[in-house]
Each structure stands twice: as structure tokens, then as C-alpha cells.
């Protein structure tokens, strides 16, 4: 049976199209199409939250290193802490948004420090005080300031007196009014 003229034409047209397709398009066509990847959207999201993720990753690494040092498995940590292995698995991948409570529990379980805020303690030691406490504090400060000022003035006066005395004495020496070794 002879091929129909239209089939031949279609084949020729198809071959012509194939010839003009670049390799990328040829791959798309011959592989049955490409699936759409969401990689770029995920990249954008990852880069937007990079700073907070980085902190989680640092904590995750410290947990992993502590587990390894102790010779534990992640299961042992989850058993010790009374959480599921899936929770620990999420922690150590560096994807968890840790709460301070969780961090404290992990620190106790592993006997390590995950976040060191020792320096910050000094700057967050302010306490709420009553009005009378505030008044007393101000008055104490004022009294102390006055006392220190008065003491300084006294010292200055004494210094001045000593200076005058020593000048007088030196003048006396100079003019022979005092015989030092007489």
C-alpha cells in the first residue's frame, strides 16, 4: 500500500521542524515534555530567611556534635527528652525555629550551652522599682554627690593651704628666715 501524499508531507514538515529545533527544544519534545520545577521559588524563600535559618543551623550543628561526642544516637536524645524522633530529626536538619524553652531543655539533656547570653545578662539586669525607691536612690546619689564635692573642695583648700605654707617656707629658707639645721 502506497503512503498517502499527506502522510509524506506531514513527515517532511515534521522532519523540517525537527531540523530547526535546537537541542534544548529537541530534548523537551523527545523526552515527552519537561516538568515544572519549583526550585527558584524555594531558593528565593531560603535566601529571604537566611539569617534566622543560619542560627537554627548553628544550633543544629552543636546538637549533632554533642550527640556524637557522647556516643549517643538521635533516638537516645529523643528518649531522654521525651520527644519523638521526628522532632529531633527536624532539629538537627537546621530547619527548626527554636523557642528558648526548647533550647533550654536540649541544653540540660546534653549538658551543653547552645546559646551563650552571659554578656547580655549584665545589660538586662534592670529591675522595676517603686517611686519611693526611686526617690531614695536619687537622694542618696545627690547626697553622695554633695559629699564628694564638699570633700573635694576641702581637699582643694587643704592643698592650697599646703602650697601656700610650702611657698612661705621656701621663701623663709630663701631669705634665711629659717635655719634648717640650726
Amino acid at each position: 500500500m502506497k503512503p498517502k501524499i499527506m502522510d509524506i508531507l506531514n513527515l517532511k514538515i515534521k522532519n523540517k521542524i525537527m531540523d530547526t529545533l535546537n537541542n534544548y527544544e529537541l530534548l523537551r519534545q523527545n523526552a515527552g515534555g519537561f516538568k515544572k520545577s519549583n526550585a527558584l521559588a524555594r531558593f528565593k524563600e531560603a535566601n529571604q530567611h537566611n539569617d534566622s535559618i543560619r542560627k537554627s543551623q548553628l544550633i543544629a550543628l552543636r546538637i549533632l556534635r554533642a550527640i556524637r561526642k557522647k556516643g549517643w544516637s538521635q533516638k537516645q536524645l529523643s528518649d531522654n527528652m521525651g520527644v519523638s524522633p521526628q522532632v529531633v530529626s527536624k532539629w538537627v536538619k537546621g530547619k527548626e525555629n527554636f523557642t528558648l524553652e526548647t533550647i533550654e531543655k536540649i541544653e540540660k539533656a546534653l549538658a551543653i550551652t547552645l546559646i551563650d547570653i552571659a554578656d547580655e545578662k549584665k545589660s538586662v539586669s534592670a529591675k522595676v522599682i517603686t517611686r519611693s525607691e526611686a526617690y531614695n536612690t536619687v537622694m542618696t546619689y545627690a547626697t553622695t554627690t554633695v559629699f564628694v564635692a564638699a570633700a573635694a573642695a576641702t581637699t582643694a583648700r587643704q592643698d592650697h593651704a599646703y602650697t601656700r605654707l610650702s611657698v612661705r617656707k621656701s621663701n623663709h629658707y630663701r631669705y634665711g628666715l629659717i635655719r634648717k639645721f640650726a
Partner: protein
Amino acid sequence: MKIDCIFEIIENSLAAVKYVEEPSDSFEYCFELWDDVEYLEKYFEQNKALLATDFWRMDLNDAVFKVLNEAKKFREDILYCAEHGKTKGAPRLDNTIFRSLHRDVLSNIRIPSKAYGSEEENSFLRIYAIRLGPNEYVVTGGAIKLTKEMQAHEDTALELLKLEQVSVYLRGLGINEAEDYGYIEFENKE
């Protein structure tokens, strides 16, 4: 590895093979691993001896964060190319992201870093791809490259096999004129 299908990362420019054995396409899977602290800690623990060589002289913690930082830089570069690549004069995958390697890479070389500054700036991360034409690539996989020769480590040796496998697959689909079968390396330039 068995090829499942092809995913498109950047329209008309960057595609990636998806293998049956992996949960996502080869391009995205690399970045999933390079952002997974558990995987990285285990990987470098197993390769501690290589990190300690004169070439790297690196602590495990530093190595993990080096990968995390490089992966971030890669993501930024790819996003930039995806967003601006169609603009005339803007960075494209050719030359800015991917660079062609000497054919000897399959047998031998880790290209000396002369184009990329001192040894300290050597990057860990590689994406391997086949160049189909100008600014057109299909990714076959990626790896953390710790050894000079690709055959010297099982991970990079596997990447060589994948490059060859995808080359055969492409030829099977009638693509015989790809410009660079298996000689493309996507390298982080810090």
C-alpha cells in the same frame, strides 16, 4: 541510576534530570543536601581525613558552614541569572555560572584555581551538566568535591557515571550534537 524525567529550572535555559532513586530533580536535590546540617555533619565526619589534608586544613564546623555559605551564593547567582538572563548584556549561564572544562576532567583534573584566586578560595560545591547549546544546559547531578581527581572519591566518581549515562540517554533521544557532553562544571566563585 535510572532516569525518571526532566524538570525545567529556568525557562528555555536550564533543565535537570530526575532520577528514580532521588526524591527531587538532580539540581534541587543537591541544594536540599547542601542545606541539610545533619547530612553535612555526617558527610564531613566520614571525610575528616580529607579535610585535614594540606589542601584544605579545615575544621569540620568550618567545612559545614563553608558549604552552607557557598550554597547560598549559588542560589543568589542562579536567581540573578533567571531574573536577568534574558536582558541583553546581563549575566547568562554561559561563562558566569557554568564553565566548560577541559576534556581531561573525566580522567583527571581538578582544574587549578588560577582563575579563582588563592587556594583558600577553592570551593567545595560542583554541579555537573551537559551543555546542549548556547546558554542551554541539562544538569546531571552535583557533589561536594574534596579530592583533586573526580575518580578519587566515590561521590564524584558517581557523578562521572551519571554524566556518561545522561549522554547516552540524550543520544537515544536523537540529540547527537550537544556541544559539551559531560564537561561542564558549575563552580562557585567566591
